């Protein structure tokens, strides 16, 4: 796990902009103006110490290990960052009041997220990011700025929240920016899809970005179950209508199913429903619970040990795969899954919140295992967790 923020001493900053962390290579590429970059003095070796000429360029500021290294009178960030949380190529947000630096974009990471809003129109029992009813429309502008500082070869980017569609046309703006600056980067928006049931909204995303897709959760094959899980009457109908509207607008859709207990109880019916009613979805993700946020308050209602859903998972995956519907398992450790499901398991947990448990030491398949959310406690850990220590049947041949 590599955190996304760290303590910092911030000096001489007027307002606190988003900054691209630059090394000399970044300067040489010249994609970003000096005014948007902070020169990472840590990246410049002792021998070729920063020359006056280099420091004299109109950098927005400088990043160093110690005060003494900072050019005097210029904005500076002093980090105690042995872990390498902030590195050249990253985009950081400065928070002078909290004396912290937030990594808003991490170079080379496959799980960068644009955080759209804290607001949400659902109230899911297992929400890992509980919503807040605050006006954070300023985030639209910040996301647009952030997109300008993201590497053009970024492998993927997500937009999440909260509920991004609550930005209305603001979401179109952000996606439009991505289309301009990052046309080759697959862009995945996590949304409950409810707003797309409103006439015409989905159509505004036609041809919005060359590699845009939407991840929409569905927790039941009927409204009672889904509405209960998302704690919102009428949500199921809106999401379903929204999915059809998205499809009509030529959008690519992923269905995300968080494996809470009431949903697992009807998993077979749910995947049947997907096949019968939404056969156009291009991917189905069956996802382990992230044990934080609201989830912690609803342990008894939502937790089911992955070991106890083995049959349901196997049947659901087999059903979808036989019907050419791509299916993946997220957030589930390999030792808790039957061997036949391993080819479907993904390393889905972002590295900044991924950890391994003591039994993972020396585990043969750790390198391709999803691992655990950093905040996983014993109660949220399957009894099936164990070390896979030798070449059990099938391990080696499934590796490739």
């Amino acid at each position, binding site marked *: 796990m590599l955190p996304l923020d760290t303590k910092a001493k911030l000096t001489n900053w007027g307002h606190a902009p988003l900054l691209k962390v630059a090394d000399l290579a970044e300067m040489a590429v010249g994609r970003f103006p000096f005014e948007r970059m902070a020169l990472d003095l840590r990246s410049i070796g002792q021998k070729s110490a920063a020359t006056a000429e280099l420091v004299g360029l109109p950098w927005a500021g400088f990043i160093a290990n110690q005060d003494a290294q900072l050019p005097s009178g210029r904005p500076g960030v002093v980090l105690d960052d042995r872990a390498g949380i902030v590195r050249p190529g990253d985009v950081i947000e400065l928070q002078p009041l909290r004396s912290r630096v937030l990594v808003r974009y991490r170079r080379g990471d496959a799980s960068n997220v644009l955080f759209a809003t804290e607001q949400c129109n659902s*109230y899911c029992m297992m929400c890992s990011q509980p919503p807040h009813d605050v006006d954070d429309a300023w985030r639209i502008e910040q996301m647009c700025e952030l997109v300008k500082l993201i590497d053009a070869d970024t492998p993927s980017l997500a937009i999440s929240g909260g509920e991004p569609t609550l930005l209305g046309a603001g979401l179109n703006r952000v996606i439009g920016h991505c289309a301009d600056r990052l046309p080759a980067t697959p862009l995945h928006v996590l949304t409950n899809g409810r707003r797309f049931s409103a006439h015409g909204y989905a159509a505004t995303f036609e041809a919005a970005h060359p590699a845009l897709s939407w991840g929409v959760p569905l927790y039941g094959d009927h409204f009672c179950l889904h509405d209960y899980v998302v704690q919102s009457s009428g949500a*199921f109908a809106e999401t379903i209508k929204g999915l059809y509207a998205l499809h009509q607008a030529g959008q690519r859709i992923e269905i995300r199913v968080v494996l809470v207990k009431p949903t697992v109880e009807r998993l077979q019916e749910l995947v049947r429903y997907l096949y019968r009613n939404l056969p156009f979805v291009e991917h189905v993700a069956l996802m382990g619970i992230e044990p934080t946020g609201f989830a912690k308050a609803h342990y008894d209602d939502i937790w089911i040990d992955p070991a106890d859903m083995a049959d349901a998972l196997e049947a659901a995956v087999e059903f979808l795969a036989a019907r050419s519907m791509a299916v993946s398992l997220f957030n589930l450790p390999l030792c808790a899954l039957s061997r036949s499901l391993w080819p479907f398991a993904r390393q889905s947990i972002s590295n900044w919140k991924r950890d391994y448990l003591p039994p993972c030491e020396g585990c043969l398949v750790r390198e391709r295992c999803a691992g655990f959310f950093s905040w996983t406690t014993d109660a949220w850990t399957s009894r099936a967790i164990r070390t896979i220590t030798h070449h059990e049947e099938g391990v080696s041949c499934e590796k490739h």
Partner: protein
Amino acid sequence: MKFRGREAFTGSRPYRLLPLRFRRLPWDPSRAFVSSMSGDWLLMEHATLERVIDRVLAADDPVLTDMEARHLIARDIDRSTLAPLLSQYKARKAYLSQGPALHIIVVSLRCHHTCSYCQVSRKPTGASSFDMSEEVANTVVERLFEWPSHTLTVELQGGEPLLHFERVHGLLSRIIERNQREHREIRFVIASTLHDLTDEQVQVLKTYNVQLSTSLDGPEALHNANRPRPERDSHARTLAGIERARATLGPGSVSALTTITRRSLEDPLAIIHEYRRRDFHSISLRPLSPYGFARKTVARTGYSIDEFLAFYRKALEIILSVNHDGYELEEGYASLLLSQLHTPFSHGYVDLRSPTGAGLGAVVYDYDGQVYPSDEARMLAAMGDTSFALGRVEESPRTWLSSPAMRRILDAGVAEALPGCSDCAYVPLCGADPIDHYARQGDPVGHRPTSDFCRKQMGMFDLLLERWELGSDADRRVLEQWALKAPRSTPSDDVSEAG
């Protein structure tokens, strides 16, 4: 905001029924097959269904949840949605979205066979006056591109089309040439015995990426008895043709149909093993139709639909066991019906649609320039009944569609509106065949209780559903695989039974 329990989300209004149909299971009349208007379905206790309809079931009964998920009822209409039902219905009827995609061209009536049951009014091999002329062929090509369908399947048949190969070659090249500026997706199929197929012909077929459809009725004795030639070598010649075609066009280039005669009924095992021996992975067991010469010889070659169904039941067991042996073999008609049961998709088959595929999904251009909505209509005309002739190739497709023949077809062409069909639980998965009913019963609407078409469809659906429900996991896997592999519409996949 406080979290609320399940009971807070069950809705407040009573459920309502959605359009549904039911059929008691013949193998267990206390239960029923219940289908929605889009063909989603559920097997349930008949008594439970009765209680659902009479509103005497507890509101939280789990069966209501299953029924809701399959669009048989809607609880609280404010919180559920009919969008999925509508979407399923449209998917099921996707074949309506374009004009006819299957275009059958009869290049010659000549044939070297003298099959007693022939569906086609064949002529002797030397009778070149029954060949399609170049002028007619050219006009057909013009008409072909007047239809709006982006994907076209062009099927060349006879008689024996290879006897008039010059015209076959001419049509293929002219269509491709025309398509240089039309940019349609075109698939060619030739229905042929493959007798006398030459290497030169195969090279031409390869150039145009032609699929071949032939007839193989079973082992040598049965095939030769069904398909007499003076030389008594029909079976050997067909096999030689299959080998020749496969060698150049690939192992999957030839499909075969099995016409079931009275003689065939006795030995399904021999027929199926012949297919396996000849490396076919698909077999199509096809009952005789009441057309062509078949109707005249019904006493000698004919049998009842019940006899056919009994044969088919035995054959299905054999085919399943062949699959369990590890050799993949599907039965074509079962695949079609199973795809209707087990997938939400539309199929590419023109003979099982509602509205009917005749004229709407397929058009037949006869050798002499007459145009028909189906091969059956053409055969009726050959026997002197031109009730279903659409017109001539010199006229426009618009004229054909507004012909009295087409009106007669459409009047009886929607299964959901036909007596005996409208309440049938299988109707969302079935089709209307007004020309078949006219041919057999003298009336396009038809009388369902005595309809062979209906009896066959019901018998097949019942059998396949029973076999699936009562089958082992391995049986189910095979049957579902057939369903999933069956071609979908996209009308480009249209297929006919010709051959």
